[in-house]
């Protein structure tokens, strides 16, 4: 049985841990707010981009001269999985749920006889995937030194992906990230970005506006498609960032609550032991006095 002193030390250390998790929760909450605002600020741009692209792309998709980013390379033998995860842990199942989704997809693709390559953004995903797919990871990018996610980071990633696509290293690219639904719910998502999946405009939307194009339609499209890639990646990174803090906040909230429970239980045992010891000492004194 642990001595009273040992128990006191244990309670004190649990309290210290609770203070840390509590502080982390509050930091995550305030960072979450900032990440959420950033994600919301990026939304109008991405939405407009989607609208314009789908407008032009539906017209161009059928034509034989459509760019490869839109029409694909004609086969789907080699898949690139662009896996975006966080840089840090202590965020519940955030990183592992993204990795799990990517891993399942990779295994099913391999079972179909396809070739799979990985591009990892973020340390945590890289570390988890490295165990199983070390040879398939073609590139790994750390965002640890980035304090404020900027569009430049997304452009950087997009450029690297495009360079590999132009070199013919893969046919299909899928982006994995965690979509931020709410603080308690983040949904790991797979989104195909090359070739681009254009949503069919709703049938009841009426005739779409016929635009004049300056310069020509296909030239705009060739400018726009690489750009759109960067925008999609940027959006994924921002959503991921918000999801990360959301997940961390609820994980730390849980940890704080668990620490509270532990402290209560330990204090109860401590007090019981203390009383038992006092009682024992009293009995010893009394029986000692009686013996005289």
């Amino acid at each position: 049985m642990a001595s009273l002193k040992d128990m006191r030390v244990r309670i004190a250390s649990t309290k210290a841990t609770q203070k840390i998790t509590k502080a982390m929760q509050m930091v995550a909450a305030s960072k979450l707010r900032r990440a959420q605002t950033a994600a919301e600020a990026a939304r109008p741009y991405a939405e407009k981009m989607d609208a314009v692209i789908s407008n032009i792309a539906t017209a161009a998709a059928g034509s034989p001269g459509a760019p490869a980013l839109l029409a694909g390379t004609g086969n789907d033998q080699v898949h690139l999985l662009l896996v975006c995860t966080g840089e840090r842990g202590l965020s519940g199942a955030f990183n592992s749920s993204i990795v799990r989704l990517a891993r399942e997809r990779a295994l099913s693709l391999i079972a179909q006889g396809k070739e799979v390559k990985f591009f990892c953004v973020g340390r945590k995903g890289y570390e988890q995937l490295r165990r199983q797919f070390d040879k398939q990871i073609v590139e790994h990018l750390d965002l640890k030194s980035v304090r404020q996610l900027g569009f430049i980071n997304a452009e950087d990633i997009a450029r690297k992906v495009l360079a590999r696509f132009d070199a013919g290293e893969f046919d299909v690219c899928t982006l994995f990230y965690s979509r931020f639904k709410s603080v308690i719910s983040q949904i790991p998502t797979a989104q195909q970005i090359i070739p681009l999946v254009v949503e069919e405009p709703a049938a009841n939307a009426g005739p779409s506006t016929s635009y004049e194009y300056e310069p020509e339609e296909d030239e705009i499209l060739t400018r726009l498609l690489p750009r759109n890639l960067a925008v999609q990646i940027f959006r994924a990174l921002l959503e991921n960032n918000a999801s990360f803090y959301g997940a961390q906040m609820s994980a730390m909230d849980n940890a704080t609550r668990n620490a509270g429970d532990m402290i209560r239980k330990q204090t109860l045992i401590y007090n019981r032991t203390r009383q038992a010891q006092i009682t024992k000492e009293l009995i010893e004194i009394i029986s000692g006095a009686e013996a005289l």
Partner: protein
Amino acid sequence: MATFHFDLVSPEKLAFSGEVDQVDVPGVEGDFGVLAGHAPVVAAVRPGILTITSGGTHQKIIVLGGLAEVSEKGLTVLADVAISTQELDRTQFAETIAEMEAKLAEKEGSELDHAIERLDHFKSIEHQISTTAMH
């Protein structure tokens, strides 16, 4: 004067949104002004200065490439970067230009052409800013 709705969005934020009289956009194939009731157009934007006129006041915003879309709902400019002329850090801008010049030597073929074109646009922006500042 009839006004129309204008949104200027960059990936990081909504830089401008509101009713305006006129917007002059630096298009790839030349500057063009947009007034209320303009025909639907999708145009690529080159790095340059975008002028917003509303209620007699002018506001100049530097855009570094992007896309402009005019529809019956108004004008939307998707800018790669949008900074107002007051906010621009001129020394940093000059540094960017110097950096671009230095990188020219590494490039070749059509990439070189693009780089030179982009550099020219940047220089003309710098020129315009410095001349307007003297008034």
